[in-house]
């Protein structure tokens, strides 16, 4: 059975977003996803990590973002762990985009994209020390 398990740990810096995208591009390509799905996976993870850098860690560059990617049973599961502020997305419901565009507020767009691009999105805030975000994409 074709399975993959890889991890990466980076400091909470926007300059590391490229490293995160390259890592997930490699995993998704190896898993056999098509070009469109690879782009969706990479963008969803970028949005999730951007939110962590901005909102959970508030641009503290000493903090870590840990990402694991597991591909098995034709399913890629990306787990992203941070130890920052519990950043609860206001809601996982689609935001009123027209109102946001008119008010020039971009907050929440990332979460909306993540939800749209992935097959399953789960935030686990149950542990006091860290937050786990799980993103699933089916082959």
């Amino acid at each position: 059975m074709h399975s993959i398990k890889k991890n990466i740990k980076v400091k909470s810096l926007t300059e590391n977003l490229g490293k995160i995208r390259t890592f997930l591009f490699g995993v998704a390509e190896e898993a056999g996803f098509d070009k469109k799905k690879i782009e969706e996976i990479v963008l969803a993870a970028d949005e999730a990590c951007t939110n962590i850098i901005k909102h959970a860690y508030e641009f503290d560059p000493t903090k870590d973002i840990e990402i694991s990617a597991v591909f098995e049973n034709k399913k890629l599961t990306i787990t992203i762990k941070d130890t920052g502020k519990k950043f609860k997305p206001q809601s996982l419901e689609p935001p009123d985009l027209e109102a946001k565009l008119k008010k020039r507020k971009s907050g929440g767009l990332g979460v909306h994209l993540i939800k749209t691009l992935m097959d399953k999105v789960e935030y686990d805030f149950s542990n006091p020390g860290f937050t786990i975000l799980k993103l699933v994409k089916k082959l």
Partner: protein
Amino acid sequence: MEGFNAKIREADGVVILSLGGTLDAHTTGELEKVFEELISQGKYKIVVDFAELNYISSAGLGVFMAYVETMRENGGDIKFAALKENVFNVFDLLGFPVLYEFFDSVEKAADRFGEK
């Protein structure tokens, strides 16, 4: 990783802003500087040429959201041209085509300013 670049040229009172590379949360600051500079020069009619832009995240879209009203309040606009499919998809998923104009070429986008 590839970087980001922005080039400006002007044609018939319209600024053509050509973007290249990757526009994510790391590179948005560079684009913000360009828009600040354009506004300080009183230039409000902008066509963004996306032909060489390979990647965009919502952080990049946030820049356009932040500046478009200023352009419109001053008789201009930000129009979007020549987007690659993957880049357009991000705008589309976030509902931008309702409030912004997209064109398949820079020329068509620039001509639109002349029609008004």
